């Protein structure tokens, strides 16, 4: 089962929200759509789900052209950012409604619901209303509902954004295990680059409605295709050096080291992050961030350096990567 999107675009009031979006997601592959808010991530997902109609391009699921089909006929499973659980129905009714409509026998309904509830560790909550559940529990119910769909494609719209940071981290491996071990393509929309790197096999970076770059997390980190991607991927943020001869050089904070032969700079500020620490340095070429082990203690005046192989070069006009 695969998902192919070709030149997809959406136009509202003569303004293109997204345009020329093309990508493929293979069986069991997870593609994250990553970008700042307002870049068209959710629109992309809604077009694939069939909630909105594309004004341009084609969408294929398993080779079948679904561009003009309704959401029902596309057979997608979707987790909404708000979870969108039916507030008047208890957990098991939330799960059974779709099954009932799709004509699953009562016996099979019970069987399926019992098994998914136990996988999701929700057995004891089956008769609760959504309002009586915690955020994490709601998220699991929403996920269970999507999984019961027997979908050809799974779409997750910021499934973790309503959860607190700690819960997010605990749920990440769980979510991976539950969704990504399936044989269907998974599309995962997020604005959190860390989450995208953790969950996805490949990431598509969206900017102003266009795909800026698409690749594995490693590719995006090691060979960012543009200044935007370089800034977006990797925390702490990459250092942008001043323009010279129409070229902007960039170096990641983790690739800078202390070197007495290097060039001088002044320590302005530091953040202790636990495993390492982040130094804010003032240099002749502007401010620079540097990461060091947490045990290192630095004087006010230091000299730093970096290897040329770790430097990224971008065209100052287009913002694209040189070479």
């Amino acid at each position, binding site marked *: 089962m695969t998902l192919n999107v070709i030149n997809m675009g959406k136009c509202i009031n003569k303004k293109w929200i997204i345009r020329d979006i093309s990508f493929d997601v293979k069986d069991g592959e997870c593609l994250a759509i990553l970008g700042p808010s307002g870049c068209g991530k959710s629109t992309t997902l809604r077009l694939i789900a069939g909630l909105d109609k594309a004004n341009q391009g084609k969408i294929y699921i398993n080779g079948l052209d679904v561009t003009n089909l*309704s959401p*029902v006929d596309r057979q997608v499973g979707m987790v909404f950012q708000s979870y*969108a659980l*039916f*507030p008047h129905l208890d957990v098991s009714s939330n799960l059974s409604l779709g099954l009932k409509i799709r004509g699953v026998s009562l016996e099979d309904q019970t069987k399926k619901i019992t098994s998914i509830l136990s996988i999701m560790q929700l057995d004891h909550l089956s008769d609760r209303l959504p309002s009586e559940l915690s955020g994490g529990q709601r998220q699991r119910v929403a996920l269970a*509902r999507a999984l019961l769909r027997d979908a050809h494609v799974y779409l997750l719209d910021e499934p973790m954004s309503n959860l607190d940071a700690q819960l997010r981290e605990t749920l990440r491996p769980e979510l991976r295990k539950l969704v990504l071990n399936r044989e269907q393509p998974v599309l995962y929309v997020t604005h959190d680059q860390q989450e995208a790197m953790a969950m996805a096999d490949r990431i598509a970076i969206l900017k102003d409605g266009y795909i800026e770059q698409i690749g594995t997390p490693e590719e995006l980190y090691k060979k960012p295709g543009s200044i935007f991607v370089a800034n977006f991927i990797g925390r702490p943020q990459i250092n942008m050096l001043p323009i010279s001869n129409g070229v902007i050089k960039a170096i990641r904070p983790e690739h800078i080291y202390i070197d007495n032969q290097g060039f001088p700079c002044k320590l302005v500020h530091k953040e202790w992050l636990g495993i390492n620490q982040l130094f804010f340095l003032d240099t002749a070429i502007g401010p620079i961030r540097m990461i060091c082990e947490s045990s290192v203690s630095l004087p006010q005046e230091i000299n730093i350096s970096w290897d040329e192989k770790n430097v990224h070069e971008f065209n100052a006009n287009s913002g694209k990567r040189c070479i």
Partner: protein
Amino acid sequence: MKRQNILIIILLLWSLGPLLWQIYTSFSTTESIIRPFETEGNRWTIDHYIQVLNADPPFWRYLFNSFIVGITSTFLTLLLAIPASYVIGNSNSKFAKSFKILLLTASLFPYVLLFLSLLEVARDFGLGNNLFALCIPYSALSMPLAVLLLSAAFKDLPNDLEEAARIEGLNLWQRLRYVLMPLITPAISSTAIIIFIFSWNEYPIALTWITKSNLITLPVAIARIAGSSIYSVPYGAYAAATVLGAIPLILIVLLFQRQIVSGLTQGAIKG
């Protein structure tokens, strides 16, 4: 006693006073009605009730007529208003907006001005002396308010819910039946009660459309009691009839009061 309690009591007396007086009158003998504060031997009686209930046709017949008209108009209005409200509540188009303004204008129009022309319509289409025909103007007149209330309720529902239902494979009717309507039940029941009360109380149309005495509705019947004699006004019987006519309404409102309040305030504040 706190000042606000005193204010509440004054307010209660103010609004319940006429009703209490009507009940008081209905149980008073004809002689004591004209001397309300005198206490003498045969002060109380239930004769007025017996008189009203034993009249021909008996009083319950009017209650039944009004009930039939009320239920049918309510059902007819909701049947048409729910789909219309769904569309208006979910649409952002200019057409829907201007339609809403038109409805608001219609709901502000004094309907009493319409009844003469409606009478012509009834005559031309042979709709006189038919309880179910009476439901047509009733639901038409209730429609604007019903659509305004219900479309506000639909508008307040998060879009995600309906979209989740679409993804789950529910068609339009199933989405209304299993997801949307259960969620706006408060609005639906308060709207239903408003329509019911309107048709229960409506007078000019009922008076002109129905002439057969076994088909008349409650307000017309009560007016007939009041005007039954040229030489005296039968206050006692009249009061008894109004009390009997009010009881079903009070019961319904008490039964649904929680829904009414939450339904009418729905849409007032964004959650």
